[in-house]
């Protein structure tokens, strides 16, 4: 089955969860990213139980912030 991950078609042997996709991309700090599946946000608490279907689109982005002091 194929899932489009951040715009790239990616093959999986079996239906992956969001957590599986992030692990496959070596995202160790899963709290550091925001995830959308087919344009809908998935909370971090749902990464394991949210299983993807063939043709789904998953996008993830790192939290972005910082500061100028120190």
């Amino acid at each position: 089955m194929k899932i489009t991950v951040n715009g790239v078609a990616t093959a999986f042997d079996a239906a992956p969860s969001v957590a599986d996709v992030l692990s496959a991309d070596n995202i160790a700090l899963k709290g550091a990213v925001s995830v959308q599946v087919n344009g809908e946000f998935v909370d971090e608490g749902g990464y394991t139980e949210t299983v993807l279907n063939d043709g789904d689109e998953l996008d993830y982005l790192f939290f972005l912030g910082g500061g100028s002091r120190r």
Partner: protein
Amino acid sequence: MLRITEAVLHEMIAHARRDLPDEACGYLGEKNGLVSRIHPMTNADASPEHFSLLPAEQFAVLRTFRAEGFRLAGVYHSHPETPARMSDEDIRLLVDPALSYVIVSLEKPEAAVKAFTVGGGVKEQDMVVVGEN
């Protein structure tokens, strides 16, 4: 090396000045090895000392870039009163090894702009400004 158009460089600096006293931030898009697309973003912190992006806006701009054939290549933000260097907070929070992090310093009358990467530790990245003829 980060290759960036003169127009994008000027727009980053103009955005940084427009948003004073707060920090400004935005996305940079690359096509064919050249950063030629800029998208000013909302600083959710609206602060002179901090910035953060809104995830919903991040995803929306990412999809716009994709539709236009651009790759998300970097993020810029301004330091209104401090040098163009990665602060401790920047180092702690900017963790995507795939991106270039560009900092626009307005500490002095003439803006200073530097780029950094974080994969394998923070490193200053060579930046080449390309004029448009």
